[in-house]
């Protein structure tokens, strides 16, 4: 093989190896599935009692660094939240869980809304009934005049009877 051809072959092999290496390194690097800002909006700073995204205390800084490390490691949002719960307990979650006593945080507003809607509907119905004139829209009494009124009417008519 001529020297120029051999050099070209070696260069080709080297470039191919570099490209494969770069691709495999890229594939090995975990891709973030979430972000610090996304997690920080849904978890608490346990010491501050505020959302992590609003906290700047030393404990919050450590917590943010912990989340950032897990984000960089390609962990999902649920996995990171689970890791935080393992460290700080369920109080670290800003959103109530969908089970146990925390479920009431979701159910109570719905039940309260339904009860309020029913109470409003009943109230409106009663109000409309109370506002109706006697005898409905025609304004006539449904059973006619009372016996006393009939007697008085007959007496008046008799007085003017010619």
């Amino acid at each position, binding site marked *: 093989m001529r020297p120029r051809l051999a050099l070209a072959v070696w260069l080709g092999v080297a470039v191919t190896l570099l490209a494969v290496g770069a691709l495999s390194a890229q594939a090995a690097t975990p891709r973030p599935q979430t972000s610090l800002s996304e997690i920080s909006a849904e978890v608490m700073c*346990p*010491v501050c009692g505020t959302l992590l995204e609003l906290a700047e205390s030393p404990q919050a*800084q*450590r917590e943010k660094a912990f989340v950032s490390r897990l984000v960089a490691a390609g962990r999902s949002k649920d996995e990171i939240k689970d890791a935080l719960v*393992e*460290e700080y307990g369920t109080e670290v979650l800003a959103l109530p869980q969908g089970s146990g006593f925390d479920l009431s945080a979701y159910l109570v507003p719905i039940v309260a809304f339904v009860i309020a809607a029913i109470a409003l509907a009943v109230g409106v119905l009663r109000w409309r009934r109370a506002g109706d004139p006697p005898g409905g829209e025609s304004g006539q009494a449904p059973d006619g005049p009372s016996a006393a009124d009939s007697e008085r009417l007959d007496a008046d008519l008799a007085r003017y009877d010619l």
Partner: protein
Amino acid sequence: MSARAAIAVLSVLAVVGLLTFGLLSKGSSRVAVGEAAPASPLPRLEGGGTSSLADYRGRWVLVNIWASWCVPCREEAPALEEFQRDHGGPGFTVLGIDSRDLSGDARAFVEHYGLSYPQLRDGNGDTAHDYGTTGVPENYLIGPDGRVRQVIVGPVDTEYLDEQVAPLLPGGGRS
């Protein structure tokens, strides 16, 4: 009482009860001298099961509630370790309770300062809440009967430990 009035009274009672529960569950008061110290079991910081203050009944215990992110905790850690080395034994121990902290950071803290006394982990802060702490560090000297003898809010130093704690320990503090 009419049905409407009964419903109104029950509704008001329910709201008041809910508010009272909220206040009671959030609030905490510091354990006082003479009271029994909280002794709920906690996981050991280094792993390997749980332990509690009750395991040390019969010994004097200086409960040190701390966290790795707390600057004053770093300042008092060497004094506590020195005191433990001088006085630790069958009659006395320092007992660290790492509260609201990352376990990895806490273990690094223990290693950095070479702390040899036992460490428990209070990740959610429930035990610190039971003591009524308002921050870290706080120290509680517990007698052999499990009752609080001293409350020290803030860090301790060698001078305090030698003058205020050592004289109470059996044999003048030499265990």
